């Protein structure tokens, strides 16, 4: 058969000429095969079949060549490889393999849930770039089994590896443990989540056994355990001893037998321990903290020393932890307090306390302790106090002083925001108020407080509460209140005068108040003649008589008759709807 000579590609001017060429070529090429469709001889038929398959593969190869030529002209193919790598990095960051898929559906949807890996199937060039871009492969998610993990490890070449293992996947077999273990020498991070399955405890224990005794010269962070579902597991090793010199961040959840004495702890900058039943004595605990000179983030939940260990006979030395930036404590508040008395922490540290204390806890004593640590002096005592018996929890948010003037004392924040999101539990709200009362006389004499924001939708406060808490706030300029009961109590307090024993003068509650904002979002239908408005009107009237006038009231009171608003404007120049 005469060889088919392809014309130069430049002469492919019209589709018809291309069609003509290829159809002619195909016709000539297949001429010898045509007419054999009715071959009965099995041997001949098989030979022809093989020939045709070879032809087909050759044609497919040509098609691929033409497709590659076409791709080379497409705008995306003309992007430089480093730009393509950049795009693939983003695809890998935002399109991860679907970890939320239920295990039983996983196999069926396997190919649809590959995430960024699909991008490597687009064309030869993409695959070539992806395969040579080691950063894509070094973050190994062990959801597709050991074989795939090993392939990723190989593709990562010499790049440091980051392993993530999620036990929700049935494809995660025992063989995945050795994958990490075999490559621990070049591993940068290991993250193992379990998802609360029945075998999770076994898995975590097994992996800990595989990993925690081996040399890990490049390991920087370890996370074991799920943040949402608690599973307990044992650590049977001494947690690397000195074999992981670069390890700086450790998160262990549900580890019942943590190796508190591992020397590796001394070098950590971040440590999270949750639910450790094997606890140190109080003195050993304090000594351990003393050795952690580099620690910056420390989260200790349900792992503080037991009450009986806190003997006061041998007081521990005060430990300097002023380098801490974040400090979270979850445990019995008496232990927390005792611990805080032994620590020196910077006032700028973000302290978060979740307490287990009962309602009768001695909050003034707690405040005294906090003052001793210096938190109150900096105006940032804590971010969170939660009662254990309620699911909603109560939040007493931080004192914040972002706008405090330079002249104001560092003790006294100018702005204060209180947020009682108790969602219906009065115990919590009362606890928070008790805490506030205990703190307030010491931390916020009120002289410098100019802005207050309070939100609560429960009947927690009375006018007396307002007077107790903020009766000495002569510089308060603006108050924002959300919630009808608390606002009603506030407007009642606005009418209150108090006398000064020394001068004999009487002054209104918050005499400098000029701006008031009221929101009653969950009570949209307050009757227009309700007690609240009468009290507000009375307060404004009496304050005006004494020259203590508010300049602005903003409120969400769409149901309030315009006539009454006009009445209010007689005493307050600007009354507006929010």
């Amino acid at each position, binding site marked *: 058969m005469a060889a088919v000579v392809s014309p130069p590609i430049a002469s492919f001017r019209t589709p018809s000429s291309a069609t003509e060429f290829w159809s002619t070529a195909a016709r000539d090429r297949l001429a010898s095969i045509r007419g054999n469709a009715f071959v009965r001889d099995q041997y001949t038929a098989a030979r022809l079949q093989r020939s045709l398959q070879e032809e087909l593969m050759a044609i497919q190869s040509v098609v*691929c060549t033409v497709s590659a030529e076409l*791709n080379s002209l497409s*705008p995306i193919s003309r992007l430089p490889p480093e730009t393509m790598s950049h795009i693939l990095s983003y695809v890998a960051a*935002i399109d991860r393999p679907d970890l939320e898929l239920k295990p039983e559906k996983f196999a069926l949807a396997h190919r649809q849930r590959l995430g960024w890996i699909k991008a490597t199937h*687009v064309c030869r060039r993409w695959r070539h770039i992806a395969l040579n871009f080691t950063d894509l492969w070094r973050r190994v998610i062990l959801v597709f089994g050991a074989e795939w993990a090993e392939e990723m490890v190989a593709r990562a070449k010499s790049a440091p590896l980051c392993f993530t293992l999620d036990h929700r996947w049935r494809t995660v077999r025992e063989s995945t443990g050795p994958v990490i273990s075999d490559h621990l020498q070049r591993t940068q991070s290991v993250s193992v989540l379990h998802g609360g399955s029945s075998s999770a405890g076994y898995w975590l224990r097994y992996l800990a056994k595989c990993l925690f005794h081996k040399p890990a010269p490049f390991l920087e962070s370890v996370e074991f355990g799920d943040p949402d579902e608690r599973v307990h597991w044992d650590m049977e090793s001494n947690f690397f001893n000195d074999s992981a010199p670069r390890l700086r961040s450790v998160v262990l959840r549900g580890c019942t037998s943590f190796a508190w004495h591992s020397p590796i702890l001394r070098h950590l900058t971040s440590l999270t321990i949750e639910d450790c039943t094997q606890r140190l004595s109080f003195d050993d605990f304090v000594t351990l903290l003393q050795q952690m000179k580099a620690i910056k983030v420390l989260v200790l939940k349900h792992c503080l020393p037991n009450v009986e260990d806190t003997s006061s006979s041998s007081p521990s030395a005060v430990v300097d932890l002023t380098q801490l930036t974040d400090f979270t404590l979850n445990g019995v508040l008496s232990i927390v307090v005792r611990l805080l008395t032994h620590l020196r922490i910077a006032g700028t540290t973000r302290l978060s306390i979740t307490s287990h204390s009962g309602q009768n806890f001695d909050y003034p004593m707690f405040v005294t302790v906090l003052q001793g640590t210096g938190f109150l002096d900096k105006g940032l005592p804590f971010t969170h106090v939660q009662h254990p018996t309620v699911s909603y929890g109560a939040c007493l948010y931080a004192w914040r002083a972002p706008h405090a003037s330079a002249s104001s004392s560092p003790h006294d924040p100018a702005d204060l925001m209180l947020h009682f999101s108790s969602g219906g539990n009065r115990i919590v709200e009362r606890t928070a108020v008790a805490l506030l009362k205990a703190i307030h006389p010491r931390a916020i004499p009120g002289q410098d407080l100019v802005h207050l924001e309070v939100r609560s939708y429960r009947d927690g406060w009375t006018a007396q509460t307002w007077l107790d808490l903020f009766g000495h706030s002569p510089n308060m300029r603006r108050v924002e209140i959300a919630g009808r009961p608390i606002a009603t109590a506030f407007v009642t307090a606005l009418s209150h005068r108090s006398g000064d024993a020394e001068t004999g003068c009487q002054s209104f509650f918050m005499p400098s108040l000029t701006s008031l904002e009221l929101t009653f979002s969950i009570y949209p239908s307050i009757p227009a003649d309700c007690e609240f408005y009468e009290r507000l009107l009375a307060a404004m009237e009496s304050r005006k008589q004494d020259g203590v006038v508010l300049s602005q009231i903003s409120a969400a009171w769409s149901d309030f008759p315009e006539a009454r608003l006009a009445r209010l404007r007689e005493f307050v120049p600007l009354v507006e709807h929010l």
Partner: protein
Amino acid sequence: MPTIVSVDDSTVPGEGSSRLLLLVSSDNKHIVVEEDIMSRSRFISKQVEGFEATSQRHAILLPFSSFVLNKVIEYCSHYRGYYLLEDDPDAAPPGRSPVREWDQEFLDVDRNMLLRIIKAAHYLEIKSLVGSCARAIADMIRGKTTEEMREILGVENDFTPEEEHSPSSKCTG
């Protein structure tokens, strides 16, 4: 390397307090822009350093159209004086942070234009713009099947049957 042509001083009024640059696009449009605006481009910055070394002013010829160039200038003007982390040579690799709102609107263009912008940004060495474009392209193909990706990006399947069923392909899905 870009082509640099000498420019008459009268063409480029750059001796005053506000230094100006003359950029010439591939369609021969002359665009005068303040040097300060284009300082986000490491390529332009290096060119300007070269000018200062030779005490001569030049126009900078760029291999993309005025339409694309104007888009890049619009981007640089918007972020004039801003510090963008992505332009930092020591910036961390791309994460999951979303595209800035303004960038999203700015890059709401057709695919070919987006590709031209990212190419120009790469040429001009504007890392933040490369990053935003890359993220926009990544968003276009996020969650799509391979076939859909090909269609979106205008790419043909050029794998041979052997390549499509090769062990590496199997291991990557």
